[in-house]
């Protein structure tokens, strides 16, 4: 039972103004568990409509995040301890999510009053006004039947003395962090008007050992670096993973059979198979947004071109590019109709766009230097890429090639991947000399940059979609 349960009684309220309900509701409504429904998008009149390219006001928004209360401090099957300890851990995950992404500077849960269980739905507003908090996040956690954990999350506007949004989720013990990410997503979406992204996962390459004998293993983790797990032993070099849109599989390159070849790794069965038996090296795997197609690049006689094959297996690969030189990679537009890719057909690496069937190939990057590893934003409005002009830097442009902006300025940053909501970009940074690799993220302002916590060196991040 891996699926997260969204409590309908709360979810229905996401799009409405719910102050009246909050005043009259019983302390904690009996949650009714139903399979996950789509959360209603943030209401059009709600939220603070601020563009992410100017985040100066955000930093001033005081958000207090309090320790989640519990009705009874009982043991849980989680690795966080009893419900009381779990309540504290949940609020810490929420605070870290909101803080680490540069959009807010939340306070708490340390150093803040801990609301009692009965106060979760009727906050002590005067206390929070006195502390100059603008927004208040409260929540509860309860242990349920069969070890299930129930988490409720509430966002209040302190000045208005009004509940803005609330949500509730029932999760198995192993998924308790997901409930916190859902809470952070709800708060983030309500305050920013943007789509959620915290409840998502990342596939990447874990790197250990010296520069000339480096072990590269396929690994996965949550969007905040938690729940880290290795998928391959490291005996064969693994590179460039991509999560399938439903998180059931990972495409990646492995040297398992000597030649670099693309495998599809099935996470349920922990088995893998070659995506195409070509006899030639295959590289740079990509999923279509609907998961039905796989792009790979194949080298033949020193030439590399992009091919498309059904992800279900079988069928004849369709060759999409056919020019002298190296055409490689490929990233679908969100609607699946176009593909952005890189090619050195003009003499050096530049970025091109084509229709999904390979027609109408045209170059869009006309900057100095080389442009590589394009990734289409899930929102469709931007293309992130690696700009190679002396140093390697992460940059964005619009899909017609205009509006170039550099987001990073380091010695070697490459391989951008988008957050599910298209607001944050992860990439990997290589240290000059030692060659140590680490995963970083930056928002679209370029101002909020931070390193992700990984147990060892890390490269090739691939961010999956937000989980249902």
């Amino acid at each position: 039972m891996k699926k997260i349960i969204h409590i309908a009684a709360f979810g229905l309220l996401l799009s409405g103004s719910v102050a009246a309900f909050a005043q009259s509701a019983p302390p904690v409504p009996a949650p009714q568990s139903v399979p996950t429904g789509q959360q209603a998008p943030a209401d059009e009149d709600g939220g603070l409509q601020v563009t992410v390219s100017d985040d100066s006001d955000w930093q001033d928004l005081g958000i207090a995040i309090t320790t989640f209360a519990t009705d009874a401090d009982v043991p849980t099957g989680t690795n966080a301890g009893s419900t009381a300890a779990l309540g504290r851990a949940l609020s810490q995950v929420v605070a870290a999510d909101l803080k680490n992404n540069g959009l807010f500077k939340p306070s708490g849960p340390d150093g803040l009053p801990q609301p009692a269980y009965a106060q979760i739905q009727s906050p002590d507003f005067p206390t929070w006004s006195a502390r100059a908090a603008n927004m208040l996040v409260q929540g509860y956690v309860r242990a349920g039947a069969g070890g299930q954990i129930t988490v409720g999350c509430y966002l209040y506007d302190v000045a208005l003395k009004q509940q803005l949004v609330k949500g509730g989720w029932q999760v198995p013990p192993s998924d308790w962090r997901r409930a916190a990410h859902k809470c952070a997503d709800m708060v983030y979406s309500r305050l920013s008007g943007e789509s959620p992204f915290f409840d998502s996962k990342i596939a990447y390459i874990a790197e250990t050992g010296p520069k000339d004998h480096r072990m590269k293993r396929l690994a996965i983790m949550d969007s905040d670096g938690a729940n880290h797990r290795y998928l391959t032993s490291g005996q064969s070099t693994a590179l460039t993973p991509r999560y399938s849109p439903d998180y059931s599989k990972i495409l990646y390159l492995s040297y398992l059979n000597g030649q670099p070849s693309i495998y599809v790794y099935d996470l349920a069965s922990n088995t893998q198979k070659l995506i195409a038996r070509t006899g030639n090296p295959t590289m740079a795997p990509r999923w279509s947004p609907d998961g039905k197609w796989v792009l790979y690049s194949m080298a033949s006689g020193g030439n590399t071109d992009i091919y498309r094959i059904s992800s279900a297996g079988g069928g004849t690969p369709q060759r999409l590019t056919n020019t002298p030189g190296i055409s490689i990679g490929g990233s679908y537009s969100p609607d699946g109709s176009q593909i952005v890719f890189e090619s050195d057909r003009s003499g050096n690496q530049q970025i091109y766009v084509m229709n999904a069937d390979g027609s109408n190939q045209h170059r869009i990057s006309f900057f100095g230097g080389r442009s590589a590893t394009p990734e289409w934003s899930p929102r469709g409005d931007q293309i992130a890429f690696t700009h190679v002009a002396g140093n390697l830097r992460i940059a964005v442009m619009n899909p017609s090639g205009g509006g170039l902006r550099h987001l990073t300025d380091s010695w070697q940053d490459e391989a951008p991947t988008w957050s599910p909501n298209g607001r944050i970009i992860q990439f990997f940074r290589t240290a000059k000399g030692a060659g140590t690799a680490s995963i970083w993220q930056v928002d679209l302002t370029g101002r909020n940059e931070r390193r992700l916590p990984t147990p060892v060196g890390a490269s090739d991040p691939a961010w999956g979609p937000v989980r249902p």
Partner: protein
Amino acid sequence: MPALMYRRHVKTGSTMLLIAGALAMSACASKAPKELPPEPGPATTTQTTPPPSGPQPGSQADFVARMMGSDTIYFQLNEDTVDATDQAALSKQAQWLQQYPSKRATIEGHADERGTREYNLALGERRANAAKNYLISLGIDPSRLNTVSYGKERPIALGSDEASWAQNRRAVTVTID
């Protein structure tokens, strides 16, 4: 660094070495047929009959020793052009391969660290193919030659400087024992 400089000197002095190598090879060439029968064979066999000096003729160790650095050719930034120096090295490799016609070889293509990972995989493949094609033009049967690209994943010079990058932009021929 000293090893690096040594390599460079070897390359600049390649004409002399080539002459020496050609002489050595023509001397060996007449004996070659007699030495052919010992096929790859397990390592234990080689230990029971240690050669008086140097590696067993026709082995990868022999290839490395005889090439004196010419098992590797180097490329300019983002290039796969086989220049005159590379041609001399590949000719030397071809002579050895012709001397041991049962031997197969893998050409490993590499790139320096100053490029993106996926492109460098394709670039390494292109470089390995450039070396392979030149060996074929010298008469080596294509079925004896494989290529594999390691992109920027297996540097040999570990610095982050022009000299190291020049050493890493390479194609290395490795014979299969």
